[in-house]
């Protein structure tokens, strides 16, 4: 029972990240398209609301963290420092990457949480 639950959690994190990435490729789709995919994943893979939230949150949050981190490293912080001065985050690219990840984490988590309640209602 516990193993299935862990497996479900891990699968939904991966699925969430994968589908969020997939819908993100198409610039014509809105940036929040992963809300829909996370919502559906949470309906299909039943978990407790808490687990659903963290699965969706970690899926998108880690995806955004990873992407931002890699892009920023390859860019040698040229743009992130400018944007972090502009936003304003005192020029800290670390803060900017963190905020990027947090936005993905929160929105992704909430979308999955909402989905999890559909099944249980």
């Amino acid at each position, binding site marked *: 029972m516990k193993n299935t639950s862990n497996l479900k959690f891990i699968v939904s994190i991966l699925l969430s990240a994968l589908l969020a990435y997939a819908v*993100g490729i198409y*610039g014509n789709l809105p940036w929040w398209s992963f809300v829909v995919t996370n919502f559906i994943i949470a309906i299909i893979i039943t978990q407790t609301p808490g687990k659903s939230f963290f699965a969706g949150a970690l899926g998108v949050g880690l995806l*955004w963290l990873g*992407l931002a981190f890699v892009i*920023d490293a390859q860019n040698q912080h040229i*743009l992130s420092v400018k944007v972090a001065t*502009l936003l304003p985050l005192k020029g800290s690219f670390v803060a900017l990457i963190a905020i990027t990840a947090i936005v993905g984490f929160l929105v992704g988590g909430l979308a999955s949480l909402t989905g999890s309640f559909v099944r249980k209602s």
Partner: protein
Amino acid sequence: MRLLPLIASAVITVGLVTVLNTQLPIGATKSPKLGYFLSPQQGFWKNAEKVSAGFDASVVAGELKGNVDVYMDDRLVPHIYADHDEDAYFVQGYLHAKFRLWQMDFQTRVASGRLSEIAGADKLSIDRFFRRLGMVYGAEQTEKYINERNPVMKATVDAYTAGVNAYLKQLAPEDLPFEFKLMNYAPEEWTPKKTYLFLMFMSYDLTGRSATADLQLTNTRDFLGYDLFDKLYTNQQDSLDPIIPKGTAFAKPSITPIKPVGSDIAYLKKQDPNLAANKVSASPEAPDKNNGSNNWAVAGTKTKSGRPILCSDPHLGLNLPSLWYEVQITTPTHSTYGASFPGSPAVIIGFNDSLAWGVTNAGRDVLDYYEIKFKDSTQKEYWYNGAWQATGSRQEVIKVKDSVDVVENIAMTNWGPAMFDAHYQNPQSKGRNLAVKWTGHDASTGVETFYKLNRAKNFDDYLSAISLWKCPGQNFVFASKSGDIAIKQQGSFVARWDHQGDFIMPGEDSTYNWQGIIPNEENPMIKNPERGFVSSANQKSVDPSYPYYLGTAGSFPLYRGISVNKRLRTMNQISPEDMQHLQTDNYNVFAEVARPALMKFIDPSKLSADAQRMVKEMTSWNLYNNGNEKGITVFKLIWDSVENAVWGDELAGSPIPLTKPESFVLLDQMNKDSNFSVADDIRTKGKVETLKEQVNVGVENATKELLLLEKEGKLEWATFKATRVSHLTKIPALSRLNLPIGGGVNIVNATTEAHGPSWRMVVHLTDEIEAYGLYPGGQSGNPGSVYYDTFVDYWAAGKYYRLLFLPKEKLVAHERTKWHIQFKTA
């Protein structure tokens, strides 16, 4: 049971997404849509280019007649090799869009009064100003003219437009330039009209100062009364070293402009006791007074190689992305290299395999105001030559983001659009109805001048190319491999009588109209002069024996020209390196004269200890505006402060800003008349201040400021001046601030706070052309690119790049060639 959490959770999710998908207000501006902006797959992260990224690419375009090869060098300069001229311009448009798309959009938005559309009501005053000035009207005249009369230029601009649009068509939404994402809007299709609008903007930038200056000068005259005005705003520049050497004989003029009868009273307002102050207003968009430039060419007789060297450095607002974009264009008809304008085809300042050219601003007055009397508020009729005459009308609709459209109804008179009226006024226009007449409104084939210069082979081609040039008037310098050098001031210049158009003119009387445009043959020109060089630095082009009036002295800075000519006269055996040193020279020829003049009046025994110390700092200064000098900061503050002490009282009490007299006026007075009556502070009753007293007051006042600066560690010139290259939005994070560079007003290296040499070029006309150049920016307009500001530090240090100008086979094999973009016809 779970329905409530579902609804709650859904509401929170939707709510958060909505907030992250909304532009939130921060002060007068708005934030980007944060969710979108931060999304690593769609937002700004997509603009963070890999530092190691290459630029190899293959582009298929059905519009092309043949294949085109573009090689990018290590500075990201494209070298375009095309078999057809139109293909070359198609590719130039494509590359401009690829590297400078947002800038192209933004600049034409400014020119056409469409900023409110993306930035909201905050920008409405700028938009209304440009609409009412007739920017769109002028671009329409040019478009119509070229479409009907000039098939070659139409094809050129069309090909360029198609290239921009080919890039746009394949541009994925996630790859939009950074600024579009920041401001949350999307680019539009390019059109030929946008190219003409951009060129209108250049006309405005270089001749539009009159749109503000004429009003302010009128109000200054009204405030002071004509007699005092005439004394303080004299056009007589004793130390002038004109572009055409003094004493050159001019041909008999074909037009003799006649001053209207009664204009002393009706227009100049001499002896008018009823002059009222309070009548003036300046627009906030006045182009920089220092928009100018240096250019010169030295003949083979003065160079080490025996071949001419040509130099050009246009002084403009320093921006990122830069106004300039370097390019080489090679087709079977020509091979040209230089700085181009993103927004326009061809090379604007550059060289080809036969010759080189450069430009400086002529500064001549080509924009006038006429005061209109409308019959009634409908503005359907106005009084002209003793009868009511019908106006035309023009409607300009300004779209405003998050608000309703603003409609400008502009009465069209025979002078031009009635820019100011009851609906549009500012403190300086004060309800007056003012029509604006401007050569910028006339249809112009300016693009063709550059098209032909790009292809010119010799002096005659150069002359024929520039003969088409109308606005903004420019000094075109020229040098060829065959050994000719020349300079000609060219444009549509009004044949003016003395002071015509300095002030607002009466609009009821046709005798105040322009009495003709000076024929091209009578525009100042000099070829292969005995002295072995030609030059210009925005000074008056001619001495007073020239038969036409040029405009007010404020439009013609004196001292850079003196500096350049002084140096060129003595230089011999010149190398390109010497010319680089001259372009970046920081010698202050104004201070050379002004410092001893000041010292004549300074009495150290009457000064405070601090002031004495500052004066010592100034006198021990080496007269170079180098970045690390303190003496120049002291000199500048003392001089400004003395000017304030002398003029401040006369200009005080005006509720609106007035024009300050030119520096040379005070300097000339100091040198010839120490009993200068204007020195008296008219605010102190019963006491007459002498110039000596005023200078010492000035020194003490300056010392107070200087001590503060000293405390903050800002006495060194570069620190004090704090030169910056600003992003077009002025956002500091996207700009380069506090650059370590000297120079300044009156200096050959004319770098001020936000203004200066925007493209430095030195061309040695040897068999294989040896050229150097750079601009303070980078080839990529993307703030996320390593090529965004590549040249800025090098530029600040006064260094140059050797420009690669080679035939295809040699360029392909060159070690500095890095990437290849292939354009294939479908």
